[in-house]
């Protein structure tokens, strides 16, 4: 080990584990900020970095071929001068000797390490290897589901979050019969609350999606290794030839076991995204305390991966002593039929919702979400540009008053 990280000099060897949006953003920002030393990018998947939001949208529908997902061209990646280690996941970390062990048996040394290993889809127990049961997280997942949907099966979507609601919309567009089962009171109820969730439910129903709310799927029914339907917690069964499980994601931290890197719900970082021992984290896998509220959060949004990648690159070069807190207004969007839903901030835990422009009937609106008397989020439906004017109220946690209009 070199003494760089101890003396406060910039690191002379940097490794980034995770070659998706966050990892790519880290290595690009490091080069842009003048870091010219050895830089290793390690990825479990064999692909060059690609984008995930279109997987449940344009790729699933067939509107895009998978080549359009690529975040950078091969020549752009080449120009970064990386030691690319794709297709060989990190399996262990030694923070004493500062080495990452890869699945192929090789070791990668570092002075500063960035963990950007993301999340993986949660699965239903007992569904491994069952044909017709899908999750949607990787390019291969999307292609496999698309191939199944081409046969116009009855699709049961388990989970009413972003992935489930978007896939249900796409599957209807492809002519599949679709039933969406969610344990919340409304589709995307966790993110949108009851009023906007009810609007979304109406939109899905108008497009022919059958919706079962407030109920859990107990298990997937199979025959001969193939899905035949699902059994609900209330003992009803729904026949299906295909099942998409969209019940959230789990942070990929198992490889850090025994490394001394603090892990809880993700990698436990401080406000600067530093986890100690020369290790930083960015993207879906990072948990950090919100600078204003102190609440520990982990955000699985595409834009968060990029923003944290930029912040971590800056902080890695500055060193832990000079690192700056990461501040953000989380942003996420969802496309369903002809609706584009955009969310600034965090809606969860909101105790007030007020529609400040438009209305659910118009399918065009802006709603402010308040918590403890402060604006915590702004949600727009088909009001793309207008919504941006409300971002500052979310950023400042402005008082949630009757006059909370832009």
């Amino acid at each position, binding site marked *: 080990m070199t003494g760089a990280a101890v003396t406060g000099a910039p690191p002379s060897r940097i490794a980034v584990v995770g070659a998706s949006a966050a990892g790519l953003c880290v290595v690009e920002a490091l080069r842009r900020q003048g870091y010219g030393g050895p830089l290793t990018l390690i990825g479990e998947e064999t692909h060059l970095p690609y984008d995930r939001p279109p997987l449940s949208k344009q790729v699933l529908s067939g509107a895009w071929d998978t080549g359009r997902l690529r975040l950078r061209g091969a020549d752009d990646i080449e120009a970064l001068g990386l030691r690319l280690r794709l297709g060989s996941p990190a399996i262990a970390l030694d923070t004493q000797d500062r080495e990452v062990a890869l699945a192929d048996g090789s070791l990668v040394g570092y002075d500063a390490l960035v963990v950007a290993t993301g999340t993986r889809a949660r699965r239903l127990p007992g569904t491994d290897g069952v044909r017709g049961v899908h999750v949607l997280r990787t390019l291969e997942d999307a292609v496999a589901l698309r191939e199944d949907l081409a046969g116009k099966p009855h699709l049961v979507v388990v989970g009413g979050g972003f992935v489930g609601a978007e896939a249900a919309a796409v599957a209807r567009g492809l002519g599949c019969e679709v039933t969406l089962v969610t344990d919340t009171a409304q589709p995307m109820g966790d993110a949108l609350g009851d009023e906007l969730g009810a609007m979304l439910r109406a939109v899905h129903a108008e497009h022919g999606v059958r919706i079962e709310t407030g109920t859990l799927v107990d298990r997937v029914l199979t025959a001969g290794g193939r899905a035949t339907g699902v059994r609900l917690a209330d003992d009803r069964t729904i026949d299906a030839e295909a099942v998409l499980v969209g019940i959230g994601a789990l942070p990929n931290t198992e490889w850090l076991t025994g490394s001394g890197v603090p892990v809880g719900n993700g990698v436990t970082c401080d406000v600067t995204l530093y986890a100690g021992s020369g290790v930083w984290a960015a993207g879906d896998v990072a948990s950090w305390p919100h600078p204003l509220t102190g609440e520990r959060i982990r955000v699985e949004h595409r834009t968060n991966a990029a923003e944290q990648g930029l912040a971590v690159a800056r902080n890695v070069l500055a060193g832990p002593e000079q690192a700056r807190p990461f501040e953000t207004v989380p942003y996420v969007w969802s*496309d369903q039929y002809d609706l584009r839903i955009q969310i600034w901030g965090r809606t969860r835990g909101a105790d007030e919702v007020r529609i400040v422009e438009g209305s659910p009937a118009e399918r065009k609106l802006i709603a402010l979400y308040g918590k403890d008397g402060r604006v915590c989020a702004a949600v727009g439906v088909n009001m793309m540009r207008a919504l941006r004017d409300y971002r500052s109220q979310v950023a400042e946690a402005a008082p949630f008053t009757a006059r909370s209009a832009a």
Partner: protein
Amino acid sequence: MQISIDFDKCCGAGQCVLAAPDVFDQRDEDGIVVLLDDNPPADQAENVAQAAAVCPAAVIQVKQ
């Protein structure tokens, strides 16, 4: 610096406008990016690089 945009992939997040308001705007009707200046002055380089990096649809290409 030369900026090019893949308009078909733009998702209307407006992140680019926040990062470089002198270079990017959004259309009123659908939020799609409007390129105000495809060859902005050098003092915009960092803002534009930031915009390209945070764009959630990776539609902004910058050639120096």
